[in-house]
């Protein structure tokens, strides 16, 4: 670099940029900086290979406004994240997720937190660069050989000639007295461009323009109609080498992709040849007794009560009177098509044989869907047992009570 200036736009010597003073230790630099500060200079700076504690005070630098910018960045991220989630899910496209409110703040906090941090961090990085006027493509100091030691083991003060207090002779004397081991003149850099090279500028402009394309496409897609199908980004996921149901497969004689069950096939454990247990029928008519496989005991009763609570109470209510939550809701909405659920404790139902009740639970009746596919047969019988108990509780006579219960009833009454 010592042969610079290679190419000068002006003839004659380059004008003076400033004076550079070199120091050997961080303490000498601080001492020198204090001298320059006290002399009242404004256009000057210090350079060191690492951050030197106390240099801010020695240079008289005021506290940076960067923290305020970062706070502003963080609050912008916070507002943007929360606002966008509110707008997207609460206003523009209300979408019910797991029964939560459309705008559910707890679920929004993680994204809000992340964007707050992201905006604060980006503001810190780019704010630091901007406040330091970086990047700076060229600087007159780049042409000074000695100055390369600023990245190694020497410390520098540069006083610029543009400062009103600058006087070449006096300033040189000041720097020499301040403990500098070497002072030299720094000419202006007439050779390098002071602006960003055109090439880089164009690339940046193209990137900026290109970055708007996805947004433009999204906006266009929102506002336009098309007859084209969507394009496949990952074709082998969209078109997989397999046959789906209801499609053609020429491999088989009937050319159907889905294969019918073979006649007489029974899955393991699904034989269900006990009509009493699985259909509630004995010799073709509804059974009046429980099947032998069902034990009539307290465990079965408790099981039935629990299953009844899960499957039956929504419509039939806690004690089976047909006043469950679904019924109440349907009635309050005044749905004309609603068929009220039966009161299973009334006499009509009490007289139905258990086998027929079992059949109703299994296959449904009127509006009631069948539960055969989701409640195992043993549990269905347990429910019937519990239903019988409910019915009995509603039609009990005094003679059904024990001696004790009778007495307490009389005393209580």
């Amino acid at each position, binding site marked *: 670099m010592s042969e610079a200036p290679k190419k000068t736009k002006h003839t004659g010597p380059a004008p003076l940029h400033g004076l550079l003073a070199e120091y050997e230790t961080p303490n000498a630099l601080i001492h020198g900086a204090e001298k320059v500060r006290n002399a009242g200079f404004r256009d000057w700076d210090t350079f060191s290979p690492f*951050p030197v*504690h*106390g240099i801010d005070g020695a240079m008289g630098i005021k506290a940076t406004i960067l*923290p305020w910018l970062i*706070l502003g960045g963080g609050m912008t991220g916070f507002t943007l994240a929360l606002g966008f989630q509110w707008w997207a899910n609460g206003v523009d496209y209300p979408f019910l997720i*797991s029964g939560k409110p459309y705008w559910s703040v*707890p*679920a929004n*906090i*993680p994204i809000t937190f992340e964007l707050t941090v992201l905006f604060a961090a980006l503001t810190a990085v780019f704010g630091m660069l901007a406040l330091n006027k970086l990047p700076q493509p060229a600087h007159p100091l780049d042409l000074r050989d000695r100055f390369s030691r600023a990245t190694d083991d020497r410390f520098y003060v540069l006083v610029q000639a543009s400062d009103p207090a600058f006087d070449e002779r006096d300033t040189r004397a000041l720097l020499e007295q301040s403990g500098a081991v070497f002072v030299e003149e720094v000419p202006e850099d007439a050779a390098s461009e002071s602006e960003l090279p055109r090439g880089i500028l164009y690339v940046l402009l193209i990137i900026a323009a290109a970055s708007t394309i996805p947004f433009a496409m999204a906006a266009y897609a929102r506002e336009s109609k098309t007859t084209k199908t969507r394009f496949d980004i990952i074709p082998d996921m969209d078109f997989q080498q397999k046959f789906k149901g209801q499609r053609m497969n020429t491999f088989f004689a009937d050319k159907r992709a889905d294969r019918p069950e073979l006649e007489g096939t029974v899955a393991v454990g699904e034989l269900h040849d006990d009509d009493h247990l699985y259909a509630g029928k004995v010799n073709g008519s509804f059974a009046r007794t429980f099947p032998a496989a069902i034990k009539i005991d307290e465990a079965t009763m408790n099981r039935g009560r629990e299953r009844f609570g899960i499957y039956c109470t929504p419509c039939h209510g806690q004690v089976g009177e047909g006043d469950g939550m679904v019924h109440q809701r349907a009635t309050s909405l005044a749905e004309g098509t609603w068929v009220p659920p039966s009161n299973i404790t009334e006499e009509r139902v009490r007289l139905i044989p258990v086998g027929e009740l079992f059949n109703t639970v299994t296959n449904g009746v009127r509006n009631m869907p069948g539960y055969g596919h989701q409640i195992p047969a043993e549990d269905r019988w347990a429910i019937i047992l519990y239903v019988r108990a409910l019915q009995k509780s509603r039609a009990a006579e005094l003679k059904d009570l024990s001696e004790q219960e009778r007495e307490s009833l009389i005393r209580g009454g």
Partner: protein
Amino acid sequence: MAHGKEVHLEDNIQIGDEASDLGKKALGVGVVAIVLGAVVGGGPFGKQFNASYLVAFMYVLAIGLGFLWFVTIQHLTNAKWSVVVRRVAEIIAANMPVLALLSLPVIIPIALGQSEIYEWSDPSKVVQSPALEHKAGYLSISFFLVRIAFYFGFWSLLSRYFLKQSMDQDTSGKAEINKSLQALSAPSMIAFAITLTFCSIDLLMSIDAEFYSTIFGVYYFAGAVASAYSLLSLSLMWLQGKGRLSHAVNREHYHDLGKMMFAFGVVFWSYIAFSQFMLIWYGDLPEETHWFHDRFNGDWKIVSGALLGCHFVIPFFGLLSRHVKRNRKTLAFWAFWILIVEFVDLYWLVMPTLSKDEIPFHIADILCWIGTVGIFIGAAAMRMKGKNLVPTKDPRLADSLAFLNP
């Protein structure tokens, strides 16, 4: 840079009768307040006294554990900035045996099976609850007592050892002590994390034995560390007000203590509190949500909202600026603030389980708080008397004295 440099301290680094005077007064007030609290709270086995005392005890235990953690992490990381403030922290952390003594009003009712707060200690209540029966193996009185003895034994030994070794260095000046304490603090930190977690589960979370949250210990830890940094700042200010450590501790050290108050008392606490809340809210399992349901309904709604505002929003903006942390008066204000909201936080952890819908405020709450804090501060002040308040021969002392924030 200035490693191992001979340091000449001009400050007055010892305190005598002023500390013991404060200590005697605080101990006297503390004992009287606890006795009064027991009288108005229905005797040593009264439910009101037991509940009030539990909150107050967990509060001072948190402070003590925070100090012990502070000492341990400084040794573990070979920290330089904190050397001038570490001795005061070591002296206060050595309160662990005092805390073991203070735990007796909590432990004895459980040991005698007369606690009305810990349902798991009552066999007649255990048989009514499948969850309690399931946990009976862990939550049994004898196993509980063994664990408590282990926690306090470990903490007492560790805190005393740190103080003793550090004091020995004042006379011997051996630099190897730093190395050996650093080696000790690594396994101790792991043991500390485990003991603190389980202690908070045993003493706080088990009140509502059907509730469980794996992050509960971390929640308690966040408050513990925040209140320890706050009390450490206030202790140093008190000592400086008495003309001690006038130059050794400067605004650079307060700035760092303030950063930690902000980091733990505001940000970390909120992060953990929200993490605990969000997972339970999202998971929506009844055995977990009832805990928050108790706290988000009735009058407790106000306290929960106040915690959000006073433990996060207000101090976040209040303590954010470096100017606030570098100014002794503003830092003192926020230190008191954190110490007060910590108490509210612990009250909020304990009381809603015992009284749903209504805030069961009772004068015993305040008396127990004054009592345990009085005894805690009194014991620490008595111990301070006649000791060097700075580790004078720690090789890192010069670095700590010259420490500057960037």
